[in-house]
């Protein structure tokens, strides 16, 4: 990549505009979905899934060559295999689902890593591990836009049954909330959004993007609905801010995004008026 003397020069380049747009969209959609992840308490599961995507991509690249769509299909496939596979393993053995998932995803990850190194794709491998938000093509942007739109619309439309389900699944089921449908629908949305964050910050850091925004808002609000939109705003703000911070310092954008989001969380943790370290909250 050529270097540009100043930030303004860099911003005039299409590649920079695309990166900025990507930060905005991916930051928002990941932040929006992070509300679901936080309320569901499934941060660790997201970490597992994000690693499980890598072997799927590797396998797809091995079979049909590298295109945007093959990588996407491979990612979905891998997530389903590991997700459903762990359920199957835990039902047919004495192991619980967490243990099964731990075995499945690390094995898959190791396999995927070997395939990608054998394919002589170390450059690409680096992008999948740590993201490539600056190198996004127009088609990548469209996919990210589509994913964001689907995630925001679906989670907004499902908000009422979803919040009851997140509060207590048994109460939800007894009220007639379609629990099984919500399970599948939210799993699908999570995978889609994970794919977009995988591209932006890579599979190692994607958990941060899908947890930190709403976790920050969680310390500031008592309203579950605010978590979604607030998470989206913080995710978008943090990502865009990281873009501007990282350029003059020559830092990796993806790492800076997570660092900014982590710092915002730390600020909320310390200074939140209600749930911060210094608040004089009394319980009961």
């Amino acid at each position, binding site marked *: 990549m050529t270097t540009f003397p100043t930030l303004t020069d860099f911003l005039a380049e299409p590649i920079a505009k695309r990166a900025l747009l990507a930060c905005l969209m991916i930051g928002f959609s990941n932040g929006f979905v992070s509300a679901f992840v936080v*309320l569901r*308490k499934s941060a660790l599961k997201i970490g597992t899934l994000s690693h499980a995507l890598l072997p799927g991509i590797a396998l797809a690249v091995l079979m049909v060559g590298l295109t945007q769509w093959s990588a996407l299909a491979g990612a979905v496939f891998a997530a389903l295999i590991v997700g459903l596979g762990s359920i199957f393993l835990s039902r047919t053995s004495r192991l619980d689902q967490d243990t099964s998932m731990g075995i499945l995803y690390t094995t898959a990850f190791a396999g995927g890593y070997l395939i990608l190194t054998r394919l002589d794709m170390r450059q690409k491998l680096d992008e999948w591990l740590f993201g490539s938000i600056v190198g996004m093509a127009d088609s990548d942007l469209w996919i990210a836009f589509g994913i964001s739109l689907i995630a925001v619309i679906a989670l907004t*439309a*499902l908000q*009422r*049954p979803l*919040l*009851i389900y*997140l*509060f*207590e699944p*048994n*109460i939800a*089921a*007894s*009220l*007639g*909330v379609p629990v099984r449908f919500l399970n599948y629908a939210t799993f699908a949305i999570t995978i889609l959004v994970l794919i977009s964050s995988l591209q932006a910050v890579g599979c190692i850091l994607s958990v941060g993007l899908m947890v930190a925004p709403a976790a920050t808002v*969680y310390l500031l*609000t*008592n*309203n*579950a609905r605010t*978590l979604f939109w607030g998470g989206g705003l913080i995710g978008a703000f943090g990502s865009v801010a990281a873009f501007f911070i990282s350029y003059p310092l020559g830092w990796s954008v993806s790492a800076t995004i997570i660092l900014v989001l982590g710092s915002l969380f730390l600020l909320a943790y310390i200074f939140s008026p209600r749930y911060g370290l210094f608040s004089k909250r009394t*319980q*009961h």
Partner: protein
Amino acid sequence: MTSATSKEHVCWGGGHNHAHHHQLEVRELCVSYRDVSALSGINFATECGRSIALIGPNGAGKSTLLKTLAGLMQADSGSIIWRGKALTKSSHEIAYLPQRGDVDWNFPITVRGLVEMGRYPNLGWWRSYSRHDADIVQRALTAMDLLDLQDRQINALSGGQQQRTFLARALAQEAHVLLLDEPFTGLDKPAQENLSRLFRELTAEGRLLIASHHDLQTVSGFFDDVLLIKRTQVVFGDVVTSFTPENIARAYGGAAGMTNDE
């Protein structure tokens, strides 16, 4: 219709015609987890206006029975007949109240927000919240003495207030049958007395309460009837005639009985 069924059944939602008294009948119910039988041979018939203590040792199947009645678990065989029809899926007329310990009380929601969840069967995904819905929620909050607490976060409630919030949610649901998992557990004496008073009010207005309970000493004071189980039914009947030391011994296998002090 017998004379015993003349009790007025209060139904806040309106639109229901209570031509006959509401009967719940359970016939030869068997439930299992995978291949292991959890419950079998459950048979009883009751009606709205009663409160039933579900008693049995740990692992006797109390929670399983409650969940099956609530439609959360499938029975292997047998049937649950509610108002003359076999119950096959969840119904807004039957509310399930889990143990307080099973719920994340840090979930960001207010008392009113939780009670409003009870309107879901009426509202579905998208229908907008009407004045009728607000009215019913208001009455539920009033009945459970929660008006002053309605805007409070649920993490700032006492145990008794949490249980009352659950009850208000069931009322907002316009439930006739309330299935409660250990509602008295973890409450101090005054809160237990208060909950017992609310139970009597709820049965007086014609609701049916079935609650698992482990404190044998308070059964007679808090409930009308008792259903003793130990993976299978030991006895069902009113507390005076059925909750006898012999029957308790049959469920708990000998030594245990009225002498457990806490």
